[in-house]
């Protein structure tokens, strides 16, 4: 639109926030200096980073990290749904049991829990399952044969995750209006069907964002299993630098891969949120609206002009020029 027309319309120019612009420039400068220093400091040994980035031990460690993350999240989520349903059941024993579980696993350090599972064999040398007071035994084996480092790592991560995720699932279930269950029941759905068909899909909308954060957190928490030799990404990186003493570059290698994996997860999380947001109104992506702002303004100005052309009688009714 030309300036004459804009002047005639008395178009309002978007406000410029100078303070924010100065802050943004300063920030860019600081980041540039920091980046330059990291890239040129020889003690980071970037050549060593490159050398080990695709080392077979690093890659196999990544596979273990992904496996541990997926399996621990499965254990954690299934446990979380059970704990949440217990918590909401209204039966005082179930409620207290669920709360006590959450209290215990959230209240003790994750690292201690993992070590505990790793050394379970020292506490209980044999695991057996039978009926007490009889000779009937279904299962009997030495603990260390059943619970190796891998299983111990899974138990330590999964059982702890269940405690945290149960609060997320509970909040999700409680966020669904009770009228939804009533409507489902009035249509002849049993309470369990109403839960599966009506409540859980809606609870997902509330559960997915924080649970996505839990997955990302879990991916990094799996590195704790290095204390019981879990063969994960960090354990394998440590195993290499214990021989070569190139500690910093190998930690950078591990961090790069953790960053790559968490970035992929973040993208997946956004996709999942979109999927479960069916039927809900959601705000526009901030990046899209940033780039559309100018086009949108031009569209608004054009609409004013068009409206004036289409309805000439409704303009200039008040004061004559």
């Amino acid at each position: 639109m030309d300036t004459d027309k804009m002047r005639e319309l008395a178009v309002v120019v978007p406000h410029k926030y100078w303070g924010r612009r100065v802050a943004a420039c300063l920030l860019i400068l600081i980041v540039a200096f920091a980046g330059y220093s990291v890239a040129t400091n020889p003690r980071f040994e970037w050549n060593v980073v490159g050398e080990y980035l695709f080392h077979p031990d690093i890659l196999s460690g990544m596979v273990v990290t992904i496996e541990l993350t997926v399996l621990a999240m499965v254990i954690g989520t299934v446990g979380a749904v059970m704990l949440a349903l217990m918590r909401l059941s209204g039966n005082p024993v179930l409620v207290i049991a669920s709360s006590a579980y959450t209290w215990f696993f959230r209240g003790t350090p994750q690292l201690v829990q993992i070590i505990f599972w790793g050394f379970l064999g020292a506490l209980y040398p044999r695991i057996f399952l039978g009926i007490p007071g009889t000779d009937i035994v279904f299962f009997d084996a030495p603990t260390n044969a059943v619970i190796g480092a891998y299983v111990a790592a899974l138990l330590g991560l999964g059982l702890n995750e269940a405690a945290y995720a149960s609060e997320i699932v509970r909040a999700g279930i409680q966020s669904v209006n009770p009228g939804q269950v009533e409507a489902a029941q009035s249509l002849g759905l049993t309470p369990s069907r109403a839960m599966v068909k009506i409540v859980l899909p809606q609870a997902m909308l509330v559960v997915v964002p924080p649970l996505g954060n839990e997955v990302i957190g879990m991916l990094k928490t799996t590195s704790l299993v290095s204390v019981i030799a879990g063969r994960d990404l960090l354990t394998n990186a440590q195993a290499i630098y214990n021989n070569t003493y190139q500690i910093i570059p190998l930690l950078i290698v591990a961090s790069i891969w953790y960053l790559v994996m968490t970035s992929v997860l973040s993208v997946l999380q956004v996709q999942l949120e979109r999927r479960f947001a069916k039927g809900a109104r959601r705000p526009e992506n901030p990046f899209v609206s940033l780039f559309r702002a100018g086009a949108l303004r031009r569209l608004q100005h054009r609409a004013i002009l068009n409206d004036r052309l289409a309805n000439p009688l409704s303009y200039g009714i008040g004061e004559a020029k």
Partner: protein
Amino acid sequence: MNHNDPTPFLRIEGVHKFYGADHILRGIDLSVRRGEVVCILGRSGSGKSTLLRTVNALEPITAGRVILDGSLIGYIEKGGCLYHLPAEELARQRARIGMVFQHFNLFPHMTVLENITMAPQLVLKQTRKAAEAQAMELLEKVGLADKAYAYPASLSGGQQQRVAIARALAMRPELILFDEPTSALDPELVGEVLGVMRQLASEGMTMLIVTHELRFARDVSHKVVLMHEGRVAESGPTSKVMSAPRTPAAKTFFSTLT
């Protein structure tokens, strides 16, 4: 569907309900015949919505019986006491009783069509095709055939409530409960919902309606029940009760509100 049939289709006998120590329903007796339209009136807090919700056992009761077409709703009687029915049997009973809520309670994660076809497929085991054909017919009937693929959030309150009525009708109910169906609507949207209800009444649907719309009650219902402080203050044929109330509670109610 003849409302001169003398045996009641729905019978409520001596229903009591407590919330903690609060005596909400104090011995309600009420009967509805097949094809009859009955409006439950009363001030807020008089127990009318609670009473309506006992009919499909959404509201558990403390004592009394709700009997639909000869069978006890929600409970089973053994040795003079009532025990809760198993969830599956209660669900089967509820499938015969439609319900329309004040806040519509459409399922926001499903399209209009899915809202209407979900229960017929899941509960009545209709094929998807049959359920969808029926749903389109019902949407036509409530004037929303063009909204089949919309999500509830994009509809006005009046449209949502008409979808909710279609959803209830899809289960081919023998009785529909309406819990203040127009109370959450903007004034200009009330008419479209009442219009659909009028049509249902004229088709002989048995309806039990909690409402504040006195003109609608006068025009459409065969019988009104006035609730006051947890009791039925007065009930009887609409014209009689509304034009010549006998009890003091009914006299004040109709004098202040008409």
